[in-house]
């Protein structure tokens, strides 16, 4: 249910101070928390021999390394499953879809305990080498800090949503050393509008995150890219084709990811067994293909080096990474899909480059441009943030040529994936919860309002045995022209309108079927569609399960609700400070 804005707003200068303070506080906290999460994961990766640098130092004891390779992700999965089952009220990992839902509908995030457990389990998942990403948990962690603003009453409309977006922006800014991309991600994925009231504090928070990561902690970017440029004009055409191929792979990945969770839940009853099994699959695969372990930062770097992978090796690695990531996320490991998307996309880019330059003999600028293009084309299809992905490339490379090439790949990928799958994995996940953004933000908001919340208390009911004169009298008293006729169990039989013809002895004889009936699941958007051509006082609303009459909604009330919600959205999307 969408909440209205606060009526007691503070004066504009005070709102400016409040928003700036919130932005700096949330941005700073989110940035430091993101750094702490990355460091914790790195520590676990080192201690548990997930990281190549840690593994190689035991290479003289290969048996020990092999045992650790299998045991660590398996036990990690077991612990993650148990944690979710016993410690988290939500009982599942939380991520960007939960943040989007909270921000869009001005709801609080899921309870703090579930959020903290989800973050802890994400650190464990990533630390034990599961094939999941760290950006989803970082985004949620940033959102947690913003979520505290939900309890504040400071006279700033939509403060909590803005604060959550601040946390998200700071987390992305910190992760990529990309403050502009942080701002864009928060708007493109979470807020989905560009009101000054939100844009200004989100920008401040993103810059705060960047300053903390770069100036105070002097953190390197999670990956740095140096690239001289695009040598041949036709390569822009090649990356466009690459974008199309990547989109197909992204669609396969997302469909698999969405299908595998329910399929596993049907077959394996215990959640911890599902995650342990996924961990075991990762461990066994990693014996032969260590690249599948964890975030894959090294593999991502290799993708930018010409000839680092053979053709067959690439195909196997891409397939393994897609399947294992879908399996890990579907089974219940806590982590995002963004980091694996970067890796899978870059490998597909390298595969494309290998085919183009190696087999077809086309002169190219090297693997890096295709790796970067593929990386961002895949990631943007998954998270539904083409602008963010383009800006990440620009901020990481400071290179115009590469950014434009990546932009071409991103656009063509999004064209296909949006059409064939949906705007993003997040949106499809939300749609499965009944929150559909596919027809726009306003449509989703109208769909969140249920007609059952607008019932008219004055609606007149009658039974089949009532005399028409009595019913007519009651209708005159209420100023209505139609009565809703119910049976003994309270189910709707039809509509009775006195005077439409000569009145029968009983209402039952003059009963007409209801021209339009809503049930308790009917939302405002659907109701307005169905009201086209409707003539009458009101529409009866019945229980979808039992058919019992719940009440009636007038056309006027529905139109008013539609206009009010539309006005509220316009106000939110165009609000200054």
């Amino acid at each position, binding site marked *: 249910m969408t909440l209205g804005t606060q009526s007691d707003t503070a004066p504009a200068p005070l709102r400016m101070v409040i928003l700036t303070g919130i932005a700096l506080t949330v941005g700073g906290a989110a940035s430091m928390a993101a750094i702490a999460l990355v460091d914790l994961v790195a520590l676990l990766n080192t201690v548990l021999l997930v*990281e*190549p*640098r840690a*593994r*190689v*130092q035991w*290479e*003289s004891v290969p048996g020990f390394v092999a045992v650790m390779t299998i045991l660590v992700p398996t036990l990690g999965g077991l612990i993650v499953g148990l944690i979710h089952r016993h410690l988290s009220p939500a009982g599942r990992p939380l991520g960007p879809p939960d943040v989007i839902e909270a921000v869009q509908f001005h709801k609080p995030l899921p309870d703090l305990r579930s959020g903290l457990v989800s973050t802890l389990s994400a650190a464990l998942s990533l630390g034990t080498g599961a094939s999941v990403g760290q950006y989803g948990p970082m985004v949620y962690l940033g959102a947690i800090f913003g979520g505290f603003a939900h309890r504040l009453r400071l006279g700033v409309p939509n403060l909590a949503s803005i604060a959550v977006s601040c946390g998200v922006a700071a987390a992305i800014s910190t992760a990529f050393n990309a403050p502009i991309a942080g701002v864009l991600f928060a708007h493109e994925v979470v807020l989905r509008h560009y009101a000054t009231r939100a844009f200004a504090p989100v920008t401040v928070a993103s810059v705060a995150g960047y300053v903390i990561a770069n100036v105070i902690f002097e953190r*390197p970017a999670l990956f*740095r890219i*140096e690239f001289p440029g695009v040598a041949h004009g036709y390569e822009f055409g090649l990356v466009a084709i690459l974008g199309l191929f990547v989109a197909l792979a992204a669609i396969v990945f997302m469909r698999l990811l969405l299908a595998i969770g329910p399929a596993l839940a049907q077959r394996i009853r215990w959640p911890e067994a599902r995650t342990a099994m996924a961990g075991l699959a990762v461990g066994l695969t990693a014996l032969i293909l*260590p*690249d599948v372990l964890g975030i894959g*930062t*090294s593999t991502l*770097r*290799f993708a*930018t*080096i010409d*000839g*680092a*992978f053979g053709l067959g090796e690439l195909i196997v690695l891409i397939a393994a990474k897609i399947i294992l990531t879908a399996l890990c996320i579907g089974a219940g490991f806590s982590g995002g899909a963004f980091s694996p998307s970067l890796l899978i996309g870059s490998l597909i880019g390298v595969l494309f480059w290998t085919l183009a330059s190696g087999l077809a003999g086309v002169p190219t600028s090297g693997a*890096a441009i295709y790796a970067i293009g593929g990386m961002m084309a895949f990631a943007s299809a998954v998270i539904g943030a083409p602008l963010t992905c383009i800006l990440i490339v620009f901020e990481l490379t400071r290179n115009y040529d590469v950014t434009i090439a990546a932009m071409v790949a991103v656009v063509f990928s999004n064209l296909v994936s949006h059409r064939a799958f949906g705007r993003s994995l997040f949106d499809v996940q939300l749609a499965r919860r009944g929150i559909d953004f596919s027809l726009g933000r306003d449509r989703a908001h109208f769909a969140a309002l249920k007609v059952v919340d607008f019932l008219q208390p004055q609606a007149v009911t009658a039974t089949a045995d009532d005399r028409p004169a009595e019913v007519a009298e009651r209708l005159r008293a209420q100023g209505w022209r139609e009565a809703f006729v119910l049976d003994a169990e309270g189910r709707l039989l039809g509509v009775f309108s006195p005077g439409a013809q000569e009145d029968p002895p009983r209402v039952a004889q003059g009963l007409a079927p209801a021209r339009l009936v809503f049930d308790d699941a009917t939302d405002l958007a659907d109701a307005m569609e169905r009201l086209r051509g409707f003539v009458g006082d009101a529409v009866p609303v019945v229980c979808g399960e039992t058919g019992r009459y719940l009440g009636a909604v007038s056309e006027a009330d529905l139109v008013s609700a539609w206009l009010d919600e539309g006005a509220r959205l316009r106000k939110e999307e165009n609000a200054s400070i």
Partner: protein
Amino acid sequence: MRRSDLFLLIFAMVATPARADDLTIVSWGGAYETAQRQAVIAPFAAETGLDVDVGVYDGSWTTVAERGAPEGWDVIDMLADQARVACAQGLLLKIDPGALFAPEALADFAPFAPDVCAVPQNAYARVMAFDDRAFSGVKPTRIEDFFDTDRFPGPRAVQRSPDGILEWALLAEGVPPEQVYGLLSTDRGLRLAFRKLDTIRDDIVWWQDPAAPAEMLANGRAVMAAGFNGRFFDMAQRARAPIDIVWDGRIIGIEVWAIAADTDAPDAARAFVQYAADPATMARLATQIPYGPTRRSAFDRIGINRDLGVPMRAHLPNAPQHGGRALVRDSGWHANTEDLRQRRFRDWLASDD
């Protein structure tokens, strides 16, 4: 008064009259030890009145294990990775950095602060240098140029060892310094590094004596060389050879002072380590020999080498004004991957036979 000064003063006051073996310090000999004697050891002895004996060893932890106790070693000059292994073997005395140095002094150390067994004392670097006469037009400026025999043809002097050259190979592939050791930890990374080495295989002139690369450049046997910055500096400044150093891709190694586990003079040893780690002492050493200090504040004090009349700051491997990429040698990684790297290097050498 700094805590270290106070410590020294108290130590000097309570110290027993000097004996012949008050303190035995072990270093590497040669010009390096001479500079240490002048800049560090002699001033310390003069200030404390202790009798300091200086020994020489080969730098390996195994020698510390063999000779340290029998010969009564107290303070040992070590490479950071050797000290790490010696520490793990129990050959070194555990020190409490917080007790030896004030918090602001600990924060002044870079790139590493003192740990439980070692106090960083100077930085050296493995660098690329070239014979200026060999390239009349464009000069090499990046580590990629070492592997570019088309633009810069001619023999390359390389140590017959995987040390350093593997790191350079990946740097030349565009890998950022912070990821080099991570990638070299994988089979794929090693394969790529050796693939890069393949590109100059026919142009490599091997060396094993650290003095050789500078000599090879000076006498024209090589146009480029991988070697230690101090050796190139000496050849360029003292022998006036037309050698220029490329600082891009420099691999900075750290030398440390460590205290032997069975020292019979732990207080004197700690006092020496404190004295040697003072910025003024570090600066004195850096003006004598081109090894950089491991404390930031020491850079402000480095001036002209009196023998050569050369301002020394520009010749130090970790001088802040050097641009390009720098890689700090990961001593832990080196210590734990010795067998792997040597095995792969031998295989690569054999693959040409």
